[in-house]
């Protein structure tokens, strides 16, 4: 059986990234926007690991690991912010959180 060309992995990463950008730009629910950000980070992780395979070094895995850790920290703080916004404005629609006054 033929082996998989590296370009396929990178194309998959590009597709996932563009889907993440689409979700980020077009969705109005703040949690879905946040999940699109996580999707973009996952796509970038796949790129890192692919290049790590290509260059036969482990550093790409390390980069992906750090991206994962930072994404986890960001998810914790971001969801706390979302909870606070929901407590104050009672809405999860980012279009309705457009003024700083209540």
């Amino acid at each position, binding site marked *: 059986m033929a082996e998989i*060309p590296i370009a396929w992995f990178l194309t998959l990463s590009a597709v996932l990234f563009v889907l993440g950008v689409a979700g980020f730009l077009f969705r109005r629910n703040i949690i*879905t926007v946040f999940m699109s950000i996580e999707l973009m980070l996952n796509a970038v*992780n796949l790129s890192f690991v692919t290049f790590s395979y290509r260059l036969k070094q482990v550093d790409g*895995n390390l980069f992906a690991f750090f991206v994962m850790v930072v994404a*986890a*920290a960001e*998810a*914790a703080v971001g969801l706390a912010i979302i909870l606070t916004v929901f407590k104050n404005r009672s809405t999860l629609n980012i279009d309705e959180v457009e003024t700083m006054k209540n």
Partner: protein
Amino acid sequence: MEVVIFLVFAIIAVVCAINVVVQTHPISSAISLVGVMGSLAVLYLLLGAEFLAAAQVIVYAGAVMVLFVFVIMLLNAGTESRKGRSFMVQLLGVPLLVTLLGLLAYIVQRIYPIGASVHFGGFTQGTPRDVGRALFSTYLLPFEVTSILILIAILGAIVLARKELD
């Protein structure tokens, strides 16, 4: 055999990613995102990154996404309403995104023609031993900095989410 595994899990990843963007209720998007992460973990195994595959499932799919699912259940967020969407954004945005995708795919195909290929066993330095060795020797400073980053994130989350003392 690797081609079959790649195609199956790549298609699952793309379908779940489309589901994340398209579904109206956040909990369906969250479950689809878990599906994306799971299939990406299998693709990491194909690329020889075994520690990262396990870390992806333990940390990302098993902790971060549980946090998302928790918040969605706590806030009892309903489905998204359709008003307030700008038609202009979609009219301009979709062609631009398709252009971005085409550009990235073209660049990828130009840089990496058929020569390089992926198979099981092509990369053997993804074991926990090698990752740990690199993590504690070359990348010791980023490791310590991320531990402080996590501490800051914990403090921030606790301060933001606690009840105000009257």
